């Protein structure tokens, strides 16, 4: 019950932040959308004549949707760690009797809701403008996206923990954003080992739904379970890393000093 109250408080706070300052979010979405248009029409101009290229164009739409989803999810978590430590609200979050673990999960869920709304909004905008309609089977796509992003949150936690102790992590943080892009874009066939990397296997499965037209119920259970296990491992490792740095920050009295 009290957990629900904390969850509600954080979901509401995040919505209020977006409503009060929609500019950041809108600017982010617009710039992503512009990059998308350049890449999409650039690719079309280069490979348009080849009939086999159609699948690639659909792949660009899907990849972009996923990238935006993942980058927002990951940066919401890490940036908020950094910002809240700088502003001095992080220590107040740490003082919730429900525990910081639950507070940060509530925080993630709050942003996730907003992120899903904007991601699908952008997906439909991309599909509408380019005329490339993908198979948006929510029942299949949503669980796969959530399972994929779960692992990414591990990295969000890890970077957040690093930021608590080392403060200057912006560069590493930004590099990771492009690592996600690479992992989404790299095909699994020539690099089967990528399956063990974060995000790649999830992208592959989502592609099978959105481009291949498969339903999650038609997939072998082991395929979905592998995704869950992959994300669980990355999330677990990231969270452990975070706890390690958090303990270090408490030892050195760094939670409130930025």
């Amino acid at each position: 019950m009290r957990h629900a109250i904390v969850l509600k408080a954080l979901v509401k706070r995040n919505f209020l932040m977006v409503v009060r300052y929609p500019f950041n979010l809108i600017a982010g979405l617009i710039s992503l959308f512009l990059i998308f248009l350049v890449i999409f029409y650039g690719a079309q101009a280069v490979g348009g004549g080849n009939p086999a290229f159609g699948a690639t164009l659909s792949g660009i739409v899907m990849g972009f949707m996923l990238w935006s989803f993942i980058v927002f999810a990951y940066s919401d978590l890490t940036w908020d760690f950094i910002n809240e430590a700088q502003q001095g609200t992080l220590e107040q979050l740490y003082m919730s009797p429900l525990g910081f673990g639950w507070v940060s999960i509530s925080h993630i869920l709050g942003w996730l809701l907003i992120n899903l709304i904007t991601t699908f909004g952008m997906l439909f905008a991309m599909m509408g403008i380019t005329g490339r309609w993908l198979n948006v089977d929510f029942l299949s796509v949503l669980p796969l996206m959530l399972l994929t992003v779960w692992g990414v949150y591990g990295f969000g936690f890890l970077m957040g923990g690093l930021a608590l102790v080392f403060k200057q992590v912006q560069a590493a943080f930004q590099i990771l954003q492009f690592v996600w892009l690479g992992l989404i874009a790299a095909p699994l066939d020539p690099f089967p080992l990528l399956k063990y990397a974060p995000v790649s296997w999830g992208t592959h499965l989502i592609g099978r739904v959105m481009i291949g037209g498969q339903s999650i119920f038609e997939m072998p259970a082991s395929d979905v379970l592998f995704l869950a296990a992959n994300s669980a491992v990355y999330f677990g490792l990231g969270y452990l890393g975070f706890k390690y740095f958090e303990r270090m920050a408490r030892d050195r009295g760094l939670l409130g000093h930025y």
Partner: protein
Amino acid sequence: MSEAETVLRVEELTKIYRSRRQGEVKAVDRVSFSVHRNEVVGLLGPNGAGKTTTIKCICGLIRPTSGRVWVDGVDALRHPRRALEKIAAVLEGNRNVYWRLTVRDNLEFFAGLQGLPLRNVKGYIDELIETFNLQEKVNTQARALSRGMQQKLAVACALVKQTEILLLDEPTLGLDVETSYELRRILRDLAQRGERTILLSSHDMSVVQDICDRVIIINHGRIVVDDRIENLKRLFQASAYRFEIEGHLSPKQQRRLQERFELLKITNTEERTVIEAEMLDPSRVYEVIDVLRQNGARLESVGRQYPDLEEIFLRIVRGEARK
């Protein structure tokens, strides 16, 4: 006071920071004290004395090197969450509140963060808005408030959690005089109603003198004094006298006074001399007068001195430094 009434107990708290540049720094050194239910205790000390570290160790934000913290019978270092049910804090140098949220949003958020259902705190939130005189700013974002109002909001956001214990780290630092007094009045009212136990840190004696029942003076990470404010004042008041005479003392008189009184201060102006002497036995006033009589000095005034806490504090801190 009986043990049962102790709501906060700090035992042998020590925090050592290790850094490559400075080596080991003892921020807090075997600090022990208790705070009783509904008591208002001031943690007084210069900057860097260890006040903030002590408070943050109580809140679980800093892990002490050794020592224990008990919050209403709960071992706060082992069960921080259970302890945090009873603690709210306003920390120094922080915003403590969200700048993008309005006054009401902030109050509702921090109640929620404590796990309090909104319908149960709505009435109290209205009450707090009135107490802190924030009615006209209810829908204003915190970033647009004055510094004083932001601080009032931060204290209100700590109160809204309805915890037994309130920790305030330098609550009046950087405030304008008016808001500082307003905040003191609010805290005093709160204390008088006997609803909360407050531990407040400050380097400003007048704040402590105004609000607190008891003062713990801390310097270089150690407790120097832990006593009721009246006792501290009495200790010094009883022994300080001030004499003012026309003209000046002869060298012989000066010497005789200096022989008799260890703590003596003689200030000469053009026409007058002020003699300040400390004595444990008030009848020694006559010894001073006997010395003054020798050249028929005209006594302008004799009076007991009433030092404020600031003076007491400075003496204690200096005394500590001499050791």
